[in-house]
């Protein structure tokens, strides 16, 4: 008899699930939100946010006018990252170009450039950047550095070959994991994190609070349905939708943007399910604190979406955040998921490296599911 209390009715759960599906499929807005939106978000972020840059307008002031200095400038232009705006005659031109915005970067080559290179001395070049667009400036800076270094290294190699003298030190820097520094490779995993949060947390919370707001929940609660049956019936449809969205984004990422998955698919699935559990937990939790759809939307955005965008490393690198904010990011599942999924996507690593993330995600999921389930039971039971 005692087990009868815990036996769940499949029929009841099925009735709730069917209604939930009908609701999503019949409402054009929720249909857009669940299917069109993830894809448009991927396209928007994929084409819109670019961390890599091309054709940075560059002003060059070449005091040396030697073959070496011309070679350096040529190589920079040929790389495609820079576009020569002007060969300046005076330092004043450089300043004016940066102030007017005609150029975003400037390179000043000293008069004794070629001579000192040949003598094997250290040469200092001056590179100036327009810092008002700090993002471009930072990236352009790293490009200039990389190119000057590689120019120096090549010269050195040529030098060594000619003299076959003792080995010098050369700096060879290479970018790993994302060799073309393509931001879309970075973005697809981030988009997955955000979409799973939206479907898992926001849609689930809204679907429950909608019933509270319209009063239909009362009619359901007066029936012999158990809170657990109601919760399962409400959640399963969104799990399926989220998994469908996940597949959609991965496929679109692969075919539209050519983002391959280096790691294993099933590990990606394991992390996704863990993360999805966390976001569903957040969704149910929000539904127990909010009484109107509007407040549920706000609460869900604050608790789930914003951290998933801002504190996950998706848009802003976590290493560059102030300590306090970075500390905050440890309390949200986004950072673990984004770290893990990027690892799987780009580095091809798996649980042997990502187990701390897996553990943290599992712990977070277990905690939030326990919290929200007990609150749900208490509020509705």
């Amino acid at each position, binding site marked *: 008899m005692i087990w009868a209390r815990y036996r769940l009715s499949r029929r009841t759960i099925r009735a709730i699930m069917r209604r939930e599906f009908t609701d999503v499929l019949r409402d054009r807005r929720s249909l857009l939100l669940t299917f069109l939106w993830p894809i448009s978000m991927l396209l928007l972020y994929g084409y819109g946010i670019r961390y890599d840059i091309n054709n940075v307008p560059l002003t060059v002031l070449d005091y040396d006018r030697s073959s070496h200095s011309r070679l350096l400038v040529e190589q920079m232009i040929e790389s495609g990252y820079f576009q020569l705006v002007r060969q300046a005659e005076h330092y004043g031109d450089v300043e004016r170009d940066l102030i007017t915005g005609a150029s975003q970067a400037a390179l000043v080559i000293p008069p004794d450039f070629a001579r000192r290179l040949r003598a094997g001395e250290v040469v200092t070049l001056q590179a100036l950047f327009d810092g008002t667009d700090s993002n471009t400036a930072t990236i352009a800076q790293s490009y200039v550095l990389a190119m000057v270094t590689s120019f120096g290294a090549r010269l050195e190699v040529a030098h060594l070959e000619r003299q076959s003298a003792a080995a010098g030190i050369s700096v060879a820097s290479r970018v790993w994991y994302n060799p073309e520094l393509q931001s879309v490779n970075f973005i697809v995993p981030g988009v997955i994190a955000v979409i799973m949060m939206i479907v898992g947390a926001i849609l689930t919370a809204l679907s429950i609070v909608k019933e509270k707001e319209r009063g239909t929940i*009362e*009619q359901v609660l007066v*029936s*012999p*349905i158990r809170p657990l049956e109601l919760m399962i019936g409400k959640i399963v449809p969104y799990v399926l939708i989220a998994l469908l969205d996940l597949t959609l984004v991965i496929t679109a990422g692969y075919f539209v943007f050519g983002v391959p998955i280096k790691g294993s698919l099933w590990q990606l699935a394991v992390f996704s399910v863990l993360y999805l559990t966390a976001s569903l937990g957040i969704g149910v939790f929000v539904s127990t604190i909010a009484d109107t759809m509007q407040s549920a939307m706000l609460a869900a955005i604050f608790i789930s979406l914003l951290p998933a965008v801002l504190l996950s490393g998706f848009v802003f690198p976590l290493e560059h955040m102030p300590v306090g904010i970075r500390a905050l990011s440890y309390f949200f599942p986004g950072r673990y998921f984004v770290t893990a999924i990027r690892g799987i996507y780009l580095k091809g690593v798996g649980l042997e490296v990502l187990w701390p993330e897996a553990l943290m995600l599992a712990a977070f999921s277990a905690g939030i599911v326990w919290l929200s389930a007990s609150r749900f039971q208490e509020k509705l039971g």
Partner: protein
Amino acid sequence: MTDLEFAVDVRGLTRVFDHFVAVDHIDLRVRRGLVFGFLGPNGAGKSTTIRMLCGILRPTAGSGTVGGFDLWRESEALKSRLGYMSQKFSLYEDLTVEENLQFFAGVYNVHGSQRRRRIAWALEMAGLVGREHVLTRDLAAGWRQRLALGCAVLHEPPLLFLDEPTSGVDPLSRRRFWEMIAELSDRGVTVFVTTHYMDEAEHCDELALIYAGKVVACGSPAQLKSEHVPHALLELTPSPLMPAYAALKEAPGVLGVAIFGDRLHVTVADADQAKQDLPLFLGQRGIVVSKVDRIEPSLEDAFVAIIEQSGVQER
């Protein structure tokens, strides 16, 4: 439940919200098989009471049984034996008529041939045959109420709670709805219905009046009228109204005066005497009386009297 005398039998039922006592130690006994009307103005505590009886709201205090199940310990078992329909229209508006019926059949675990039979019955009863695929949102209010009632009784509950089922519905639909209630009652269903329409209260076998959280009277409509309005009642149409109201309060042989629209209901000891005296009495004070009739007391008269006698303060 067949050998149960009272479908609802609770004592000292109380609910406090923060510091507001919504329902204040009420005792209710509803004989099985009756249509029991629970009357009171808005905010008197009708919905709070009904929600406690249905097990969706925990009482602050009180004890008793509903449908033979203990209010505290067996509320889960009770839930499969009762039907509930609330004033707030509580069907899924974005589902069709049939989908709503299917949904509630699923929730109440009505399945197989019984599901088909009950859904067909509900469609028939609500007059919705042929409209199975209409979106519920597109139905007129009267149809929706009938559909909601159909959904609430799919599982054939012996006890039915209706919380202001006819609010916001046109008079014709209201009458239709009460015919459905009568039909259910004929089949032996105990119906507990709240309302603030006096004409609806007349349809009930028994009534309880709740005012400011307290039950101030119980009994059949006839009982309430005869017990609380023992004297004769005259209806006067005086002009001007307010001076007549003030004057009659002081008139000899007058026990009570109440305003009903542009008329006065005057409680008197001797109807025939007063019918002659009162127009003269008012005429002396420059008030014209165009009409005087002896009337049967209505429930409204009874309730005005009950509330005055009870001494419960409005809140």
